[in-house]
């Protein structure tokens, strides 16, 4: 049976048109499923409806019901099924409708999936992906970042891209990886017009575990990821204009494993480091990064390691509360000024 043609909305890169972050994710999934028929999707409302954010729009018609499976609302059950199918040589991709809903699958991810290779199961190639992050007035259950619920679990990898180009290349790398990967997509980036970019019209992957220098600078280094990359760039541009402060920005891209060498290099370059994450403060990744800098680059520091994060609270609904909850560009500016003057 010949599959129908590639849907028009997934041909933008082929036509040389810019794509959004969301379209980059869709293209990555579509191209990987076309390349490898052992890949299939599991998730809620991903078939007929095309996913809550329409990431898999028209996939069902193209790939059929065995490769685009609408599941019961049972995140633990279908994530477990992904593991079982991966054992049998398939390469499942699980969509969490919102990553906030990953919690019922915490057991199977941490106890079963993450330990499988260590317990002798061999590869468990699967990706768990979905939208994260705040700023959309989604309230406590449609806005969370989940990386730190899994960062502490050896055996997992965690990816959190900030641009369409990275999202596509990193998602392809995650799908081809033989280890289980949690892939976070910030919903505020999904359709952000300013992020649209023309992607290469050939297959490319971005290796997991490699950070990217977004911006060169000499006074203060910001280590960040996801939506905060863009807020950090805003801050850096303001600081350069208003203060003449030169800010280096490192986009981690992969959180597990962390690119220690890139972090240490950024510290050594400026001697001042600010860690910025949208996730909440206590137990956030800034703590771990700070510890690693302490271990490997203590003598290079000219100032304390600082962080800018969300406040330690559930994600509030009201815009006035959520804006206060989230790290803002002005917070980053304030922190960089403090470091630069230290």
């Amino acid at each position, binding site marked *: 049976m010949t599959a129908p043609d590639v849907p028009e909305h997934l041909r933008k890169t082929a036509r040389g048109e810019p794509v959004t972050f969301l379209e980059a994710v869709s293209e990555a999934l579509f191209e990987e499923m076309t390349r490898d028929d052992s890949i299939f999707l599991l998730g809620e409302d991903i078939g007929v409806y095309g996913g809550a954010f329409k990431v898999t729009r028209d996939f069902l018609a193209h790939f059929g019901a065995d490769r685009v499976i609408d599941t*019961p609302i049972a995140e633990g059950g279908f994530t477990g*099924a992904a593991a*079982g199918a*991966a054992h*049998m040589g398939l390469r499942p991709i699980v969509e969490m409708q919102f990553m906030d809903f990953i919690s019922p699958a915490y057991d199977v991810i941490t106890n*079963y999936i993450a330990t499988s290779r260590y*317990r002798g199961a*061999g590869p468990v190639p699967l990706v768990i992906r979905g939208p994260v992050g705040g700023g959309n007035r989604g309230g406590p259950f449609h806005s969370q970042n989940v990386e730190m619920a899994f960062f502490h679990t050896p055996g997992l990898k965690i990816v959190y891209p900030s641009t369409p180009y990275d999202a596509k290349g990193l998602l392809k790398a995650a799908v081809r990886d033989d280890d289980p990967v949690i892939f976070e997509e910030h919903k505020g980036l999904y359709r952000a017009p300013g992020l649209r970019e023309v992607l290469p019209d050939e297959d490319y992957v971005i290796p997991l575990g490699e950070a990217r220098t977004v911006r060169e600078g000499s006074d203060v280094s910001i280590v960040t990821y996801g939506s905060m990359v863009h807020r950090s760039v805003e801050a850096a541009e303001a600081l350069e204009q208003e203060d003449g402060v030169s800010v280096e920005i490192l986009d981690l891209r992969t959180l597990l494993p962390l690119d220690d060498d890139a972090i240490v290099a950024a510290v050594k370059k400026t001697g001042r480091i600010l860690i910025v994450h949208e996730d909440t403060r206590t137990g956030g990744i800034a703590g771990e990064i700070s510890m690693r800098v302490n271990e490997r680059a203590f003598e290079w520091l000219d100032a304390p390691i600082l962080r800018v994060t969300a406040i330690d609270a559930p994600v509030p609904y009201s815009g006035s509360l959520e804006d206060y909850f989230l790290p803002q560009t002005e917070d980053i500016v304030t922190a960089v000024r403090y470091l630069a003057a230290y």
Partner: protein
Amino acid sequence: MTRDAHGLGRAELHQIYRALVLTRTAEERLETLQKQGHVTGGLYRSLGQEAGAVGAAFALRRRTDGTGDFLAPTIRAAGALFLFGAEPVDFFRQYMARDTGPTRGREANVHWFDFDRCFLGPVSPLGTMLGVMAGVTLSFRMRGEERVGLVFYGDGASSTGAWHEGLSLAAVQRCPLVLVVEHNQYAFSTPTACNTRVESFTEKAPGYGIEAESVDGTDVLAVFDAVRRAAARARAGGGTQMVELRYFRRRGHAQHDPQDYVDPALIAAWEKKDPLDRFRARMLEHEWATPDELRALDEEVFRQCRSAAETAVAEPLPDGPDALLDVYRDGHAPLPWTRAPDPAAALAGQVGP
């Protein structure tokens, strides 16, 4: 052969008997090894439940080339693993955490994978295995393979959310999966009545739209029949099935559990329904075997277990630094800097892990 033999030939009946004896003998040998200090972790007996695992596994297609039916055992289903080709020496190696064992000391007891013999290593929260086995059997259905999966679990796991979620998915996807609930009346010290209001776990099946039957779990041929029927339905496209095994856990949850929450008279009553005694009597009654043949099998199994245990005892534990390996495909966990040849250099990142 009489028609009571359930369509089984003499050699097959001997195989079933042998698997029952092997389960009992291997576990008794483990008790000795534990007393001698060789088994450092928990020891979980299946006393009184051996016929469940053996009868169920015997009803499946057992292959050693990765094409057979697929099994997720519980700690009390060692007999099923043996029938699927697991070597007793590996069973001992696992309990004794030997480097030579299938998980090289990372995991214990029956928790190991063998994709050729077609079983996987469960995790301790057993309800989780429903979802995993839903995925294993989903792959059979998607590829048009005439294979089924079988997942064992107990009274306690039946109460977990993971069990419900896994079964919900398996049922709607019509996965060729047979659920075998080991209704042994206790989840650790918790009696079934504290886990569910239903009398039989089969009462849960209609809520998922699946077929179920309940069977005397001490009668190995009754179990065999029930699971064979369920597997046939699943193989024919009938979707997910459930079989309840009714029996009694005649020992504590593990050897460290004195089981003092159970009336000794109840245990004594169930001793009279010992699955091995029952099947031995039936073998003799129907003349499926002579007393000499059974005795020879008993002795052969005893020698096998003794020899396997001696082999495993003599083998080494894994090297400590092996704990760093196999967390990911590439690389390994960072070496603790305090254990590096030059700790200070390692701390500074000048010596790679």
